[in-house]
């Protein structure tokens, strides 16, 4: 029965995706993208991926919408109709779709326990993470423990992308933004009701993010999800109180420090393992008891991930929100 609900959600997904591509208004497309993300998150949840659903909700419905909107405020909202010559892309896309669908007939059907994916390392992870690390959330154990090297790479990609956004948008027009800085800086100060409720929510959002950060070994949660949710909380403050106030609590220097600091904490944990006689990112040597060492290492690594993700997303938001549209 729940699978049937999943089918309905998938059908709605396709409808939304088509609408996103068709609509000429970019603001509408971004709104539909937000719906698309919610549908996607619900689908992930039905497919048993609780952690992924949490990330998709925080990123897709929260951060992604906010970033697209703050970029769109600097751009033209309406897309120009591109004339003629549509048949070629449609033909290519239709042909590839048919080929892909034909290829799916060789795939094992959904949920087949004997599918090749489930035979290799996954059973070992499921078996060993409660033993080696005493962690009940296997996703966290794999993310920060067994495949930490992988995650380190991802964190560095996020860091690089965040620095890239800041550098690309760094050369603003200082003279002009000084002249006309005052008016938008107010945020939503004149919308009293949303402002009061929003301010009430900020501590709860940040607290919830911290809960996810530290509860990640028992339930859905971890550095990535927590980082995204805390970032949404901080961005909410900037939205309500204006850019200037948002920058005042977390200046760019601090943000850059946090971004790199999180990634460095991750690397430092790895190097500490090497200095103590293990391999890079080998947590077992961090404490006398190997299990305690594993847990300590995972907590530190997750903290590093959380710090980097939070500060990168906040910095990207500030980079867009601080700019004024070109004349």
């Amino acid at each position, binding site marked *: *029965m*729940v699978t049937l*609900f999943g089918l*309905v*959600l998938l059908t*709605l997904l396709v*409808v*939304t995706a088509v*609408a996103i591509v068709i609509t000429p*208004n970019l*603001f*509408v497309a971004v*709104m*539909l993208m*937000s*719906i698309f993300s*919610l549908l996607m*998150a*619900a689908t992930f*949840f*039905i497919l048993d991926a*609780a952690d992924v*659903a*949490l990330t998709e*909700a*925080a990123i897709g*419905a*929260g951060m992604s*919408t*906010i970033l697209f*909107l*703050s970029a*769109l*405020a600097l751009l033209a*909202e309406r897309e120009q109709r591109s004339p003629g010559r549509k048949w070629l892309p449609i033909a290519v896309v239709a042909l590839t779709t048919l080929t892909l669908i034909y290829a799916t007939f060789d795939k094992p059907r959904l949920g087949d326990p004997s599918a090749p994916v489930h035979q290799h390392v996954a059973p070992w992870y499921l078996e060993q993470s409660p033993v080696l690390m005493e962690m009940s959330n296997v996703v966290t154990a794999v993310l920060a423990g067994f495949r930490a090297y992988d995650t380190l790479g991802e964190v560095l990609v996020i860091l690089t992308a965040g620095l890239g956004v800041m550098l690309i948008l760094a050369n603003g027009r200082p003279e002009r933004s000084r002249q006309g800085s005052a*008016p*938008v800086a107010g*945020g*939503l100060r004149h*919308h009293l009701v*949303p402002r009061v*409720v*929003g301010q009430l*929510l900020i501590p*709860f*959002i940040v607290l*919830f993010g911290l809960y*996810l950060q530290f509860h990640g070994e028992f*339930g*859905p949660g971890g550095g990535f*999800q927590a980082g995204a*949710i805390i970032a*949404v909380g901080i*961005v*909410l403050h900037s*939205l*309500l109180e204006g850019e200037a106030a948002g920058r005042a609590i977390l200046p760019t220097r601090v943000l850059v420090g946090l971004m790199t600091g999180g990634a460095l904490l991750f690397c430092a944990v790895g190097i500490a393992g090497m200095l103590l006689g293990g391999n890079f990112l080998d947590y077992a040597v961090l404490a006398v008891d190997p299990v305690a060492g594993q847990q300590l290492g995972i907590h530190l690594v997750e903290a590093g991930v959380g710090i980097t993700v939070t500060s990168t997303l906040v910095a990207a938001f500030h980079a867009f929100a601080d700019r*004024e*549209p070109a*004349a």
Partner: protein
Amino acid sequence: MYYAATAAILVTMALALTRALLGPTVYDRVLAVNMFGTKTVLLVSIVAFLSGRPDFLDLALAYALINFVGVLAVLAFFQKKRHYERPR
């Protein structure tokens, strides 16, 4: 009865999506997005209960908190747009 409630929520999701597609004003679409968020919270709560894993209610909580920020971001976007379009 859970299934009936879930089915009602899914149908409502489809209706809200139709409203988001039809428009006609941008506010209709934002309204639809907001509705959609609430429905997702309800859907996740029911399915979490049905599958016997109440610890997944954390997800519903996350959705409830995040969705509101999205609406406020839209509001800030309108305000910024209005501000830059008026003087020029």
